């Protein structure tokens, strides 16, 4: 099964399986991983990068996704490609003789997930090919909210809004936290089934940030309606009409990605009840 995700912004790592090129690595950005790997392997004239063209065959082994915008993902891509030029990664040492390119790039990305500005983004580390999978070093564990996932991923077009949903929004919604009326542009709802929580974006953010007064952007918090722990990034994705890859479990660091959303939601329910 392939996980389907709307508004996918991903930064991926390619591995060259040609023995002549000895495990070369390429880092890139894409909004459509399946199309992109096809482009790389087809060569420069079919949209692949010049650097990978004719140096294949390439496998897309790892992808970091969950970036909320293309700019955020492109930043990440650049830093991963140029860790020694990035001001945020000055502590990352150069590749040692015994370190393969794959190991080095994995070390770099492990470091990146732990530093600002990426450490508070709702990212997922996904190994697309199990045989290449590596674990995080003991001292380089990612933030708790960043899961390690396995399995394929596919970009999906967001569904157009239903007519029914639009009618619902015309009714007056009350913010659960401040009791004020909520306009549809500011409306946050929880994606757990049976949860009818509604609130202002800012009210909910402030609620999630209790205890982190110095921060502006929340990472995760407890839904005031159903009390489930949810990621801020997932709530925003839900608000934007993305129903794929809604990360709910914040304490677990390993989530199987080989399932579609419906199955994921059901399995979480079974855990909690």
């Amino acid at each position: 099964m392939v996980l389907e995700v709307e508004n996918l912004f991903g930064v991926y790592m390619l591995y060259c399986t040609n023995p002549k090129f000895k495990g070369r690595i390429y880092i890139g950005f894409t909004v459509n991983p399946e199309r992109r790997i096809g482009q790389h392997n087809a060569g420069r004239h079919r949209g692949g990068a010049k650097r990978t063209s004719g140096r294949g065959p390439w496998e897309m082994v790892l992808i970091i996704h969950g970036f909320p915008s293309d700019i955020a993902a492109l930043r990440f891509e650049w830093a991963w490609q140029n860790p020694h030029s990035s001001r945020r990664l000055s502590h990352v040492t150069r590749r040692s003789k015994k370190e393969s390119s794959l190991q080095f790039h994995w070390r770099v990305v492990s470091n990146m997930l732990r530093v600002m500005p990426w450490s508070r983004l709702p990212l997922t580390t996904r190994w697309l090919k199990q045989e290449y999978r590596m674990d995080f070093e003991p001292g380089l564990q990612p933030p708790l909210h960043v899961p390690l996932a396995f399995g394929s991923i596919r970009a999906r077009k967001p569904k157009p809004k239903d007519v029914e949903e639009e009618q619902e929004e015309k009714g007056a919604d009350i913010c659960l936290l401040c009791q004020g009326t909520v306009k549809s542009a500011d409306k946050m709802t929880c994606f757990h089934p049976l949860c009818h929580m509604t609130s202002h974006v800012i009210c909910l953010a402030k609620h999630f940030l209790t205890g982190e007064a110095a921060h502006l952007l929340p990472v995760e918090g407890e839904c005031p309606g159903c009390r489930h722990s949810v990621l801020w990034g997932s709530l925003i994705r839900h608000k934007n009409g993305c129903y794929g890859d809604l990360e709910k479990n914040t304490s677990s660091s390993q989530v199987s990605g080989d399932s579609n959303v419906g199955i994921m939601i059901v399995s979480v329910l079974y855990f909690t009840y």
Partner: protein
Amino acid sequence: CHILFLYPLTPLSTVAPRRKGQQGPLVPITPMPSYSDMDTPDLKNKLNRFGVRPLPKRQMILKLKEIHQYTHQVVSSESEDEAPSLGRPRAVGPPPPTTMEPTRKPVSCAQAEGFKEPGGKAAPTVSLVKLPGEEEDMEPLSASQGSNTSSTAPSEDSERLALGCLSDDSDNDNITASQSASKLQDKLVTVRHFIQSDPDLYGQILHYQPLVLSDLQARLKAAGIQLGAAKLLDYLDSQCITFTTAKPGLRGGRKRRGKGATRAGGRGRRGRGAAKTAD
């Protein structure tokens, strides 16, 4: 490469005989010998008298002129402040060839500021003490050894000198590092409150939408908050706020552009859509 000349607090005896009537305020001082016209061996000899190793000719001339200026001063209350600030050369030598992360910062700090702003920040105190040791010991030793042997005998003199000079300047209205850091913290708190008080702006951030940097800077300025671009970028990074320098409407250009501030410490630029960050 420059070697750091350690100016002792008392003039050297070799210079003393040349001084005439040092006590009176209006007595003429020995004119400077024409170092620019001297031969290299002569310059070497002269420098050797001060314990300075042979340098490239141009640098020897500069050094000798410096020494002469320092040792032939009008003794008055103002010049006591001037004297130390003349002395230290700005370029205190190349940083060690091997990468040494902990020591790199102090070296570059001193290189950037020299001695001209001794009271500016507390950091130069550290670098000034360290540097003489580095300079003196680094030439013969390997670079990694040099950085560790910072507290050798010659450096004690310079430490006295450095601290003496710094205490002179502490009367000025230069603020210390801790004061400027807390000022910065206050400003950042103000920025945060400003953002939280603007629902549109805060809403944008909460939706992970990139902010237009020029727009934000204009808004901050209008609110009376003075924050330099580099510090602002650092702050946005610490808050995980994405920003763009593209003009709205022109975003999505094909030109590959930056991801790195041009400030000190920032380097290369690349990326699509004019996305820039303080890396």
